[in-house]
């Protein structure tokens, strides 16, 4: 029994990490159709900032996360102002916003990644934090993975609640359904857009900070995370906070069970097969509206 608990829990925790990586991108793409392909690069920045603070100033990485969030939120406002505002204003159709933001995302990816190479070099970096195992009902987990999982769940629940029950959430959802319509009913997209974009980057940064406790970091680490994020948010249904969490958890559990029952070599095959099967059955993801 303990074995099964551990297996499922381990899958859920990895799944929580997948969801964590995706939350920020889901916000940006789901709400504004900004396909920010440089998402993983900002995650990488968050990871480096946390690593720097911990390694050179001895700051507790968890305590530093709000700083990371703030820094990336600021960066998000700046990036939005410099790049995406113009795109949102000059693109006549939502498909064009999507296409152009994809290209700008590529540009940002090159730019940010290379800047990181110049500043920090290509070397693997990392540190140990909360790496001690914690025993829960006979199963053992490291604290840093639990922290990442906890944040993913908390952030998802928070977003679900905000979107569902608050006035801001209603505005954001209105914006999601029809940007022009939102403007008609008096929602100020000039404020909401940059804030949502900044929040997306802040979430990416916090995810990076949390992951830097678990995995090693390099300037090239971003791209696989962007891919994971894209898979998770399409699996869950673009823009759905609940779908994002469910999609990540589903993948994590499928992988854990797959690894146990078949071979870990089949893990990638399995998760892609599940992803594709879900999309074929539900073309708009698990939590399609």
């Amino acid at each position, binding site marked *: 029994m303990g074995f099964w608990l551990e297996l499922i829990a381990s899958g859920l925790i990895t799944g929580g990490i997948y969801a964590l990586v995706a939350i920020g991108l889901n916000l940006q793409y789901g709400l504004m159709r900004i396909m920010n392909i440089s998402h993983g690069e900002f995650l990488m920045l968050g990871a480096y900032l946390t690593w720097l603070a911990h390694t050179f100033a001895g700051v507790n990485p968890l305590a530093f996360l709000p700083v990371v969030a703030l820094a990336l939120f600021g960066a998000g406002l700046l990036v939005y102002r410099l790049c995406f505002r113009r795109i949102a204003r000059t693109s006549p159709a939502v498909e064009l916003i999507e296409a152009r933001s994809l290209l700008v995302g590529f540009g940002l990816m090159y730019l940010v990644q*290379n800047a990181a190479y110049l500043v920090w070099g290509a070397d693997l970096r990392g540190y140990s934090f909360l790496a001690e195992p914690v025993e829960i009902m006979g199963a053992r987990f490291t604290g840093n993975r639990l922290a990442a999982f906890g944040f993913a769940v908390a952030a998802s629940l928070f977003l679900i609640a905000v979107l569902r029950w608050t006035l801001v959430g209603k505005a954001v959802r209105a914006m999601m359904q029809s940007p022009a319509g939102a403007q008609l009913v008096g929602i100020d997209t000039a404020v909401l857009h940059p804030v949502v974009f900044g929040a997306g980057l802040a979430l990416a940064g916090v995810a990076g900070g949390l992951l830097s406790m678990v995995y090693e970091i390099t300037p090239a680490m971003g791209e696989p995370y962007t891919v994971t994020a894209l898979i998770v948010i399409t699996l869950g249904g673009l823009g759905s906070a609940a779908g994002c969490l469910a999609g990540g958890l589903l993948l994590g559990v499928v992988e854990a069970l797959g690894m146990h029952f078949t071979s870990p070599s089949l893990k990638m095959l399995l998760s892609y097969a599940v992803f594709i099967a879900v999309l074929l059955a539900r073309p708009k993801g698990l939590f399609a509206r």
Partner: protein
Amino acid sequence: MRLATALAACAIAGLVLAPAPWLVSDFALSLTLSCLMYVGLAVSWAMFSGATNYLSLATAAFFGIGAYVTAWGHGTLPYAVAVPLGGLAAALFAAAIGAAVLHLRGAYFAVITFGLGELVRHAITYGEKTWARTVGRVISDPPATETVYLVVLALALAAVATAAAVRASRFGLALAGVGSDEERARTLGVNTRLVKTGGFALAAFFAGALGAAVAVRWTYIEPASVFNPFIGFQTVLIAMVGGAHTLAGPIASAVVFSVLTELLRLQFPYAYLIVLGALLILLVLYLPGGLASLLERWKWRQRHA
């Protein structure tokens, strides 16, 4: 008329470029080959995705499938057979998955095509490891650079000629109808499913054949390098920067992008990607119609001068 012009341009380009291996330096030849590879990839991508607005991220998968056909056929199949066979294998794969996924739209289609590519890559890795006890294949006596160059040149020109012919045809009209309003096209008698699958497979043929043709240069064909998602991303990037709904845009963009990246790389060996990224952003912000819109603007000025 426009088709005839395009075909004539292809023929002239062929005559000009074919003797390159005996005239230019090894490096210039290598760079030209890179340009041609991306011309072929971007033009064939735009032929389907530009016309229909179905943003496919399966290029890397097609490329890798083609490459694996040469890898498996190495030693038994002549290069000249392996290349079209690689294209055919990719086209068959595209037709099979196209029938299943071409009802998905937008980002869902993009991500699922990417996922299918990864699925194939992992399936090949697993199959090779399990049954052939290997990961990757060695091409022990690759064809000469001249041969590879000429084959890639032929494929790139064939892609351009095919794209021009498609644009001038009923098939091209149907693809454009799908891109503009798929349901409307259906109510006007277009079998959109067939048209989409056909277009997807045709585009895949060129990506597959190019994979089969180029990957022999790398001596060692392994899933991680031939299914490199960046090949697909770069193709999309080039085609969209050029203007995916045009024919000339992706061609110009492939040449500009390849040469520019290379010059920057050689000139600024540490910071070239920063420059490239910044240029790309500026281009999208201030030339949203892509390189093709420059051409259109120029034509417009000519007419109204």
